[in-house]
């Protein structure tokens, strides 16, 4: 992708929150979970111009404010899906709707932002379940490319993309072995070569331009795109499941000063102490417990064991049910030992911190983007559901293609 376009997109993201419909909203009377601090009973969340302006009790509510009565309800930050393909896919088996996979196995310069389709039907479905922001990511190969953070609100890519890039995807799992000549050892050798070449390129750009240096292992644009990763400013979001692969990721992170976040981490519980010491967050799929050779030690209490070792746990969802079960993924982590508060953090503030956007997202605090959900009950149990989903201060209509189908077939035969 043309880096000028990327730069343009990045610049535009700074404006996005002000493009939201400005509404002044007071959510009153609910039990508020700011995540950044303790629960507050009977509290108000005040929203103005797309931002949270106050959270607490006995607030003065300006005249003309739209009130949402949340008495008896639960109020949380909007959920952040840290490993989605929202906007990049609509029907998995239909190539025409898939934009997340670039050919080749080394694509650090591939940024998915301009592949996003703001009109995909699964975005309204995901946000009706309380997801308000998502890391949407490329897949395939050793370095699939750059993931971006999007708000699940907006008709144009520029309105949605909030952080670009948000992470560099790297795949250290079984599935990238082909990129290493069929061996995990080859994968690591190739990664080191590319990383070293990126740093060499950075040091000797003048020589490179004069063609006064040996051939590099990737084109200049790809190496250039890796530099923020090697400077530790762009998170390396590395898929790794087997204990030895997670250990390899930690080794690489030490050698190259990567800001590492693990995705998958099936056997992370086995190496939890190392991850905790290295302060590496782990994004887990709490449902993963089937043994495979990529993670024979899969177990359902992975998230709880990691939290006990003081690892920052992020909860992500597998996508078989379409991107609408993030809250239940958190519920399963609770079922298997994670505390309720840690589970809420694992789908809000923990990913926001891991991807460097906690100044804007992940908690209910004055100055943050007004992504707020009012739940009828427990967000993580089936008996609860989202009643209001507010994204960037906008109370989103609770409609989707699914609700349209429901209404069409609620009474049979349908009246066309």
């Amino acid at each position, binding site marked *: 992708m043309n880096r000028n376009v990327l730069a343009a997109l990045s610049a535009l993201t700074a404006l996005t929150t002000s493009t939201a419909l400005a509404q002044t909203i007071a959510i009153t009377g609910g039990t508020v979970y700011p995540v950044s601090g303790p629960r507050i009973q009977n509290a108000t969340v005040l929203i103005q111009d797309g931002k949270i302006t106050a959270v607490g009790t006995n607030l003065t509510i300006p005249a003309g404010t739209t009130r949402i009565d949340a008495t008896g309800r639960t109020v949380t930050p909007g959920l952040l899906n840290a490993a989605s393909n929202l906007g990049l896919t609509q029907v998995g088996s239909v190539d025409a709707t898939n934009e997340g996979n670039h050919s080749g196995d080394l694509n650090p310069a591939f940024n998915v932002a301009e592949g996003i389709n703001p009109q995909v039907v699964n975005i309204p479905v995901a946000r009706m379940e309380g997801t308000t922001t998502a890391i949407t990511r490329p897949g395939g190969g050793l370095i699939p490319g750059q993931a971006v953070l999007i708000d699940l609100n907006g008709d144009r890519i520029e309105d949605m993309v909030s952080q670009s890039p948000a992470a560099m995807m790297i795949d250290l799992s079984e599935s990238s072995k082909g990129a290493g000549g069929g061996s995990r050892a080859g994968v690591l050798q190739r990664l080191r070569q590319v990383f070293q070449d990126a740093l060499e390129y950075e040091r000797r750009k003048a020589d490179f331009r004069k063609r006064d240096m040996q051939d590099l292992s990737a084109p200049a644009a790809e190496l250039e795109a890796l530099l923020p990763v090697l400077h530790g400013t762009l998170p390396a979001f590395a898929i790794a499941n087997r204990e030895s692969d997670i250990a390899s990721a930690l080794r690489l992170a030490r050698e190259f000063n990567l800001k590492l976040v693990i995705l998958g981490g099936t056997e992370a519980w086995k190496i939890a102490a190392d991850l905790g010491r290295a302060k590496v967050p782990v994004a887990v799929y709490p449902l993963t417990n*089937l043994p*495979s*050779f990529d993670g024979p030690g899969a177990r359902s209490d992975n998230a709880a064991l990691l939290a006990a070792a003081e690892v920052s746990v992020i909860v992500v969802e597998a996508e078989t049910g379409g991107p609408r079960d993030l809250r239940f993924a958190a519920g399963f982590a*609770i*079922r298997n030992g994670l505390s309720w508060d840690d589970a809420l953090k694992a789908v809000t503030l923990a990913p926001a911190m891991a991807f460097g956007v906690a100044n804007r997202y992940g908690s209910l605090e004055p100055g943050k983007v007004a992504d707020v959900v009012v739940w009828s009950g427990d967000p993580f149990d089936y008996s609860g559901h989202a009643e209001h989903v507010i994204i960037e201060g906008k109370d989103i209509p609770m409609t989707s293609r699914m609700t349209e189908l429901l209404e069409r077939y609620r009474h*049979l035969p349908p009246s066309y």
Partner: protein
Amino acid sequence: MLTRWPLLITIVLATGCAGSSSVATKPEPAKDSTADSISALRPQYASTYRRHQNPPVLIRNATILTAAGPEQANASILFQDGKIVSIGPNLTAPAGATIIDGTGKYVTPGLIDDHSHLGVYSAPGTFAESDGNEATSPNTAQVWAEHSFWPQDPQIPLAIAGGVTVIQALPGSANLIGGRSATLRLIPARTVQEMKFPGAPYGLKMACGENPKRVYQNSGPSTRMGNMAGYREAFIRAEGYRRRWDNWLKDRKGDPPDRDLQLESLAEVLRGHILVQNHCYRADEMVQMMDLAREFGFHIRAFHHAVEAYKIADILARENVATSVWADWWGFKMESFDGIPQSAALQQQAGVRVIIHSDDADGIQRLNDGAAQAMYSGIQAGVPVTREQAIKWITINPAWALGIDSVTGSLEPGKAADVVLWSGDPFSIYTRAELVFNDGWLLFDRNDPKHRPATDFNLGVTDPGIGQ
């Protein structure tokens, strides 16, 4: 509807035991030397299931969802010798009974997954374990899933820990006609024969829509009309086969017809002895398949993955065809694009026999979660569903789809002691199965590592926290 083993012999001998719902009986010995020389009349991979001996069990003071009546609070359930003895407010334990305090806990029937590929697509998921799709021809009615089934699949203990006691293990959906399914008790065993549910009829896996036409796009069928022609051609041939065999079986004079395994399975469908289990997503295709069944005089027992069933719930209720659906899978291919979470609730309201199924080694561990998600999705959208209805989606309704509902699927005196004790409300995400009894056998105890079955594959490879 229970039939006896082997199925073909059922036809010959049915007069002596019609309507029997007893557990497996050995096939009667062949009556003459002709029969003795004919493989079709000899035992066909008979069940060797034997009930495990266990002391009587009394669970007291629990909330019981029986799948046969109203939810009972502060109730007890007694089971002995593999059978439920009684359910009620105040039961006395017989001598030697294990007494379990169910305070704050729930009891349900063992869960039944009528759509599983455990054992035919086993973990760890290498090509070596890929035994579910004989994708070499659009019609492979001759293959039997039990001949692929690996009892050491390490996914089995995880499903048991989710409260599952019976599964239908099916061939995959690559083919128009994929082969015979097997209904199995989910128990540790060395052979699939030990797991075969005594007396359960076979199912025949059929598949509509995208999968067969994708797999065979170069050789055909490559269209939905090609799919339909494929089923019809197969059953036309089966009609003649059935006639030839039925004629010969009347007096057994002369040489019997040549045996054809493919046509044998289809003829058994025509005779009503094998139940059609039809993978079919789209509403219009389900109606086509019901017309196909009418053309050949059989009945489709259940549509599986019936994502669009809610669009024709009135028709499905009228035709008495069960539907197996997911609570939340949708959108992964075009024929699943119209999935909605209220589908089960809408169908329930229309009177369809709804089933929540898994098709998945993850989902099978959480069938109660699927039922809960589908139930609350309905309630929240103004399509009310009761807990008494939702528990049937994962117990008695799949038992009916498999033809074993007279033996299991609900908690009633005389039925099999397939019983799960849950830590709390089974429709809450925080609840886990604590005790799982299969035909009275305590197979899983979350609080006792001695009662957590591990497969051979687990030993030395996977973590001992299995089921955690």
